[in-house]
């Protein structure tokens, strides 16, 4: 590769690099403001040159954080669930009294969290309902329509309507299930597993889908904007499964994007185009266009593993963070 080629396929000079100060748990844009959730309990909001620093957990670690673009929801190892807004204001959502918050889900004004087996969902009005999972609930996700929550546990996942009395529906598959996501059209439920595999269910008939072949655990999953592709971490390439057909990925081979000699740790689809941001265990960040597999470098390797990626709503900016605290904000040239 010539130097000219290198220059053409790199956006690294457009990335503003900075030190966030601690392991980056989540990277998101809250009301357009770049926002980093850090393991030391701090949230950084705003442009890297003039960041607002909000201390959420002065004496605890932030275990998990998610955002829907309006709110950042955080979970601490002191049991507190906190909602953070772009102006830095915070709202205490729950206090599980020292029990670790293992998973979060967020949809508009509704949210859910789990601490061990205890799963709680809070609706738009603030009413809280509880459900006890058979084992620790490792992952939570809201369906896009209707107030329905999926929770993963050992040997399956359970779909629960918090506002409806009656037994929740459990879909079964042997093994320990970790993270969970609904397909955007609501037809499929997909979990990542302890056994270096994904599992999926077609919800209309509970038909099983096995997605295997990973050398490591998948801990990052992202749907394309059109809902037709599911990108996953856990291999030396981003593994992207096709979900366009009515059978989903059954009987189809996945695409592999950004094949390198390093494990993919984070994936995030662009919100408007079939472009995937990929973060690796060696700190490199890459953009890959699904159509022609063209690759563009965003961050050179070094300083740890990429632990968080997030696009803004228009797809003009990408925020990334590493487990070492290194971070950066890419602004795509217009």
């Amino acid at each position, binding site marked *: 590769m010539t130097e000219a080629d290198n220059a053409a396929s790199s956006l690294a000079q457009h990335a503003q690099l900075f030190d966030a100060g601690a*392991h980056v748990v989540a990277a998101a844009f809250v009301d357009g403001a770049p926002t980093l959730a850090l393991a030391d309990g701090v949230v950084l909001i705003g442009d890297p040159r003039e960041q607002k620093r909000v201390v959420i957990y002065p004496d605890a*670690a*932030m275990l998990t954080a998610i955002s829907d673009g309006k709110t950042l929801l955080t979970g601490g190892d002191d049991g507190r669930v906190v909602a953070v807004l772009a102006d830095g204001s915070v709202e205490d959502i729950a206090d599980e009294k020292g029990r670790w918050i293992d998973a979060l889900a967020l949809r508009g004004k509704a949210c859910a969290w789990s601490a061990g*087996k205890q799963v709680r969902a809070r609706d738009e009005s603030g009413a809280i309902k509880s459900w006890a999972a058979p084992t*620790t609930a490792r992952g939570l996700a809201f369906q896009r329509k209707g107030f329905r929550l999926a929770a993963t546990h050992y040997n399956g996942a359970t779909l629960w309507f918090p506002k409806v009395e009656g037994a929740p529906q459990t879909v079964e598959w042997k*093994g*320990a299930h970790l993270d969970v996501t609904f397909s955007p059209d609501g037809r499929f439920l997909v979990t990542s597993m*302890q056994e270096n595999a994904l599992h999926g269910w077609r919800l209309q008939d509970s038909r099983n889908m096995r997605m295997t072949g990973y050398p490591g*655990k998948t801990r990052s999953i992202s749907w394309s904007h059109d809902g037709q592709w599911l990108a996953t971490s856990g291999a030396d390439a981003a593994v992207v499964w096709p979900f366009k057909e009515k059978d989903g990925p059954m009987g189809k081979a996945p695409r592999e994007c950004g094949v390198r000699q390093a494990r993919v740790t984070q994936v995030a689809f662009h919100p408007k185009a079939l472009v995937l941001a990929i973060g690796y265990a060696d700190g490199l960040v890459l953009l890959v266009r699904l159509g022609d597999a063209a690759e563009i470098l965003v961050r050179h*390797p070094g300083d740890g593993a990429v632990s968080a990626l997030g696009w803004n709503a228009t797809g003009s900016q990408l925020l990334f963070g590493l487990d070492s605290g290194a971070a950066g904000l890419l602004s795509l040239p217009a």
Partner: protein
Amino acid sequence: MSTSHEPEKIPVTVLTGYLGAGKTTLLNRILSEPHGKRYAVVVNEFGEIGIDNELVIGADEEVFEMNNGCICCTVRGDLIRIIEGLMKRKGRFDAIIVETTGLADPAPVAQTFFVDEDVKQAARLDAVVTVADAKWLAQRLRDAPEAKNQIAFADVIILNKTDLVSPAELREVEARIRAINPYAALHRAKKCDVPLADVLERRAFDLDRILDIEPDFLVREDDHGHDHDHHDHDGGHHHGLKHYHDEDMQSVAVRLDGDVDPAKFMPWINRLTQEQGPNILRCKGIVAMKGDPKRFVFQGVHMMLDGDSQRDWRPDEKRESKAVFIGRDLMEEEIRNGFLACAA
């Protein structure tokens, strides 16, 4: 250019012991002594710890089967989750202690460190430490399979409450322990008053530290002033301990002078641990591979095997191959003959 070097992994000590043996006493001692170390403690019963410790994590022992075609491959799902979470506090503690319930099998905890890639990357299993009650252990070995498992599995055994038994009873219970596990380091204690150096930083699962696999009492005979009964002629054992045979849990030690043929040995050890893995709790070996100047060392838990080339054989060292297996209903003749058949 970044220089990459392996970051120091967090040591994890597993504390087992039957109900009432004194695990919590030992834990409180570890936390209260002025050693300058900060521990993250994983417990199953909150509130028992009498010492203020910044990081006490309550856990449910969630034992998960792995769908990897290995019937005895179980892991502690809660431990995987906790170690992942603790990594968010990296730099704020030095070591992890996992206290299991009195009825727990130590195998899933140990296997977690063989199976889970993320755990392996962040932490290393240091040792399984079992606290045993000198007064009640003999009876528990008869009526509680869990107690026997914990003794068989241990790298370090704290024989506690020795002030509550007579010297004869003490010798008896030690002999019963040795019948099951002759390889663990055995320490007598009252109220768990053992030096913490005997409990922590043992590196019992570190392949580089497998130096020899002689039974503990042979290794320590010189430096231990134990009041062994040297007038006991029962069986003519090395140190005069009365010899017991435990009906279902034994250790098998095999040895051959000289080298093994790797083309025979590797398939044999793999097949043995696959076929008899459910019964083999622990195994360890130092092997001279034909044509290899380095010692080959291995260790295992049930079907999990971990092996590597270690240091060179020294010029003054006899090249020999030996292995020990601790387990239930072990087929001693079959294991011995199989091993001898691997001779180069």
